[in-house]
């Protein structure tokens, strides 16, 4: 801000020159950035480079080493195809802008919720030919394969790479201190509520829940599945979450927050906040996906032996929300770059020999191996994958026994306007977590009505 007293009258020439010089520097650095982001293209036609966004952060040297080793192995196996890693995880808020600016990598690791939107916006490359010629494609569990497929045309747009189910992360030491068995996490809502109350002390809250960044709606969906409710009708034309199942979810959270006082007073969290609360011993239980074990270990140097993962407590639904990651390809990239990227992704993640050496490498370099994940494939291939993972696991697998053995059905996130639905539900979650007189039924009715309009508009 200009701090000159007569700033209105004399924006002097010197100021102007300084200003434009500063802007010029900014413009130059933008150019430099644009140059960095350019994709593909290499002089020799036989040599092609594909960029991929999964390079781990430089702070995690072990993971960077593992990544570079796999690239080296790939380039030996596929002469003429080169891989360049970027540390640039998928971000729904910048994806479209970067794609338009030509700054998106050739290959990005996105989420299960994204492909349908990206397909409708033409923001993802069609890889049907590559996928069909890949021997393992047909081993995918059909429900997983459908995430990458456009139902109306049958075309394929991605390579699903892992799947997760949400569960309860809990602090085993706190369980023991509260007289609870650390090997027996709560399996029902009633137990969950009672455990949270017992775990609460002046310095520790029993439970913390997310309610911003669309993660309130995400976790609400998970909760309503455990109660046997639905978010949308099967054809995705009707909002259905304002049912008595939906109300019971909100009532549970509200009772825990205000009647039992077993939740944090502070609210408006995202998953990053609640994981921090768990890692810093402020909260005893949070809801997470197993892939967060890596963050728990690398970012907070947590001793994984102190933490357990239990299945989502159930209330008649015997189901849990599942999600996952999927590799997608840049529609603006050359066919050769997409092929190189596809070759790398499939080679690095699903070639059993490579998998084995990657897992050995990961384990030797302090990376988490064996975090319980879901089944992507069917039949023989999946069994081989399981055997490998168990062989190299370096996490306390016994702390996850109940989670791994859970028989709860895996229910995917609703496909229609998912993020907008979550956005409509965030305020609802916030209301029951911050307002003791919030009316769950009324809140859900309003949100359902609002979201129904969005569904109707998208259908017309």
């Amino acid at each position, binding site marked *: 801000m200009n701090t000159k007293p*007569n700033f209105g009258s004399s924006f002097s020439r010197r100021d102007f020159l300084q200003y434009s010089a500063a802007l010029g520097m900014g413009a130059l650095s933008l150019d430099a950035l644009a140059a960095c982001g350019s994709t593909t293209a290499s002089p020799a036609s036989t040599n092609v480079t594909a960029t991929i966004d999964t390079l781990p952060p430089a702070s995690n040297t072990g993971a960077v080493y593992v990544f570079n080793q796999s690239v080296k192995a790939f380039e030996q196996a596929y002469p003429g195809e080169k891989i360049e890693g970027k540390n640039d995880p998928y971000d729904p808020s910048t994806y479209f802008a970067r*794609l*338009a600016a030509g700054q998106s990598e050739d290959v990005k690791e996105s989420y299960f919720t994204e492909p349908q939107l990206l397909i409708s916006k*033409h*923001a993802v490359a069609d890889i049907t030919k590559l996928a069909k010629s890949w021997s393992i494609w047909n081993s995918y569990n059909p429900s997983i394969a459908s995430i990458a497929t456009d139902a109306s045309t049958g075309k394929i747009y991605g390579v699903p790479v892992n799947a997760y189910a949400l569960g309860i992360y809990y602090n085993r030491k706190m369980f023991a201190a509260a007289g609870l068995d650390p090997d027996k996490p709560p399996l029902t809502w009633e137990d969950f509520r009672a455990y949270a109350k017992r775990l609460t002390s002046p310095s520790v809250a029993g439970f913390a829940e997310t309610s911003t960044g669309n993660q309130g709606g995400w976790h609400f969906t998970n909760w309503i599945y455990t109660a046997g409710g639905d978010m949308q009708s099967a054809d995705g034309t009707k909002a259905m979450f304002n049912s008595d199942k939906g109300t019971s979810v909100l009532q549970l959270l509200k009772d825990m927050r205000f009647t039992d006082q077993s939740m944090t007073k*502070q*609210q408006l969290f995202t998953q990053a906040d609640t994981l921090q609360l768990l890692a810093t011993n402020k909260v005893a239980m949070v809801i997470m996906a197993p892939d967060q074990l890596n963050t728990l270990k690398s970012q907070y140097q947590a001793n994984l032996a102190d933490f357990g993962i239990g299945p989502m407590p159930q209330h008649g639904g015997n189901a849990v929300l599942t999600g996952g990651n999927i590799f997608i390809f840049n529609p603006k990239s050359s066919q050769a770059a997409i092929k190189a990227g596809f070759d790398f992704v499939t080679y690095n993640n699903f070639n059993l020999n490579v998998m084995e050496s990657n897992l050995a490498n990961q384990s030797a370099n302090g990376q988490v191996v064996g975090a319980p994940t879901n089944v992507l494939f069917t039949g023989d291939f999946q069994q081989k994958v399981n055997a490998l993972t168990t062989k190299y696991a370096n996490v306390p697998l016994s702390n996850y026994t109940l989670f791994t053995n859970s028989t709860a059905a895996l229910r995917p996130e609703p496909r229609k306007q998912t993020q907008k639905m979550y956005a409509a539900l965030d305020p609802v979650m916030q209301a029951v977590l*911050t307002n003791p007189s919030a009316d769950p039924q009324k809140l859900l009715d309003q949100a359902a009505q609002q979201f129904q309009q969005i569904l109707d508009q998208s259908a017309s």
Partner: protein
Amino acid sequence: MGLPSSSPSHLPRQEPTVLPEDAAAHKSVRASLPGRLLGQTLRRMLQRNLSGYLFLLPALLIFALFVWYPIVLGFVISFQSIDMINPPAWVGWANYQHVLSDPLFGIVWRNTLAFTAYALLFGYAVPIILALLINEMRHGKGFFRLAFYLPVMLSPIVTVFLWRWIYNPDSGLLNALLSLVHLPPGLWLETPGTALPALMVVATWSAAGSTMLIYLAALQGVSASLYEAAELDGAKIWQRLWHVTLPAIRPIMLLMLVLQIIGTMQVFTEPFTITSGGPQNATMSVLLLIYNYAFQNADFGSASALGVMLFLVLAVFALLYMRLTNRLMQGD
């Protein structure tokens, strides 16, 4: 315009004449004369200040590319459906209709106006009072000036984390202080009624320092002889303040008022980073909704449409600001 350089080559350059098409355009030689004179004046100005204009050129280009072009593009996109891959399609007023039918539309404007009003009621006077106090100090002026300016130098994200801790109901500073004096703790950011004012405090805290410096400079420009005269007439401190100081800095106060309205109506950082628009949309601002349209829903058309609406509202204040600065310049 009848610039001589546009004459055909067979005409002597020294004798600038009106060409037939020029004559037709200007109807008469008489009418073209001022035009020609203007052209000559322009050319002379250009020649005399050529280096100056060359210096100006990069700035003009950068402004055109990074400020004016995006503004124009914003208007254009507000009438288009864009997926950033295929060519944009014209959709008429559909984006505007979508924005107007969004249940959040009324909420975000109400919140934004409430935020602006809170900032005016409670935040506007803060830098003036700080500047007056520091101006009256005999000792430690430099220290306090620096102390009040420090928050401006903090990165906004640091500010955000600091205040999230201050407001934290479980272990925050504010509730700890309140409990010391036996006042009940509050759920500052978790209650719809207090979340917006709480954000206003953060915004004021982090911006007051720079405005204070502007007022301080203005105060130092008030002639000492006016105070002497007032003192000789027996004016007390409040009378001096009311009849000398405030009238002297009034033009600056008016300007800062308009600037503050323009600034606070674009509130984004605090709701985006501290509350994400919650609880229950109580801190969802116009700019945050624009951001959500564009970057959560990939709906750049609606984002631009709402952006255009905000632009039009702010343009009124910007015009006011320009008129005020003009008056201030003439008054000097």
